[in-house]
């Protein structure tokens, strides 16, 4: 049971690192944002896992239910999800503009164009 008690967190770490890897290793600007998305979502999983109580119910008060999961991480993550989509949309808007200005969304091509002018 001891191993399983951290299983969630370790999966979170793996997901986080996969997302992080996409962000820094990929040259495509859209793909980077997708990686960023994965990276952020994994943090959501971390928080929500922290709020789970074994045998608890969803935090909507009902008669006869004594044990609930922790509502506070849920609230925080609702906010964080909004922050995530906000960041994604601003990033994508910039990508669209970059495409209009450079004709490409590959980091290497952009650097090359900037170096020549």
């Amino acid at each position, binding site marked *: 049971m001891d191993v399983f008690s951290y299983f969630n967190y370790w999966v979170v770490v793996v997901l986080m*690192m996969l997302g992080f890897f996409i962000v820094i290793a990929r040259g495509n600007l859209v793909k980077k944002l997708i990686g960023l998305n994965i990276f952020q979502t994994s943090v959501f999983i971390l928080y929500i896992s922290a709020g789970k109580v074994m045998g608890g119910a969803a935090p909507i008060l009902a008669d006869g239910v004594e044990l609930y999961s922790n509502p506070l991480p849920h609230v925080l993550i609702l906010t964080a999800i909004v922050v995530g989509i906000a960041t994604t949309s601003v990033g994508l808007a910039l990508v*669209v503009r970059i*495409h209009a200005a450079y004709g490409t969304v590959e980091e290497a091509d952009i650097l090359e164009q900037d170096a020549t002018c």
Partner: protein
Amino acid sequence: MLCLLVATAIALIAVRGLLASIMLTSVYGLLSASFFVTMDAVDVAFTEAAVGAGVSPLLLLLTVAIVGRREAASNARRLVVPLLLVTVTGALLIIGTLDMPSFGSPDAPAQTHVAPRYLQQSGDEIGIPNVVTSVLASYRAYDTLGEVLVIFTAGVAVLLALAPAGQGGSARAEPPAPEHLAPHTILQVVSKLLIPFMLLFAFYVQFHGEYGPGGGFQAGVIFASGIILYGLLYGLPTVCRVIPPPVVEVLAAVGALIYGLTGVLSLLAGKNFLDYSALAADPVTGQHIGIIAIELGVGIAVAAVIITIYYAFAGRLHTRED
């Protein structure tokens, strides 16, 4: 469930081509939403399903429609540094997890310190069953105001980046409806049947948030999705005639202001900012009024901003086609 998530993320690294990546992102969003349900976080699951599997793939698709779906092969030389960085960060995280309270334990500090108050007393103090809504809209209402302003900022930022030089906002130079849209009869008929129900459902979610999962944010997203679906099928000019972009932009600000002014009202009544008990003689009634008011603000602001962002992106797509 979590293994599926990992598999999706690995597949995301493996695939080239943005379209497949976007589909996988959507799958990832839906899987994590299902995971949140098993973790009892129904409100979060709802939101993640709407955002992670809905809005964000939609925006990605719009972007890819503009910038093209190709992805260049990445340079193998560039992989060493990222791998190193990722390994170090991952190792640090694993170290961090070793001393954590074990998963699901009811005795963990997170479960015993602040949260119990919400579970035990929100019924008396706020008087609504959904504790998440109580915390979101009252105990931590200021965070939620911040959240509304984050999404408002995103709307402003997207407009600043994408607004064309034409007067005020999105593309007004009406391009003729693209011809390939004409034969979408089946889609148009079905969506005509469904969109009213989507909008109705949005209102249900808006006002049911006190009793079950839901609330202003989710309602706003659903409402916006209905409008966007309409826009996708009937073309941007049509939907712009139904809901003109300047109106939406004003509504975004109005939504944020409704929230803020609710707080200012309690200031004027001599209580602290966002202390809804000032809004009525009976504190619990006051809380009710306050929560309904701010959820309305959230719903309006979120729906308006998402529609604005859609207009901005779709406007770019149109001007490109010309």
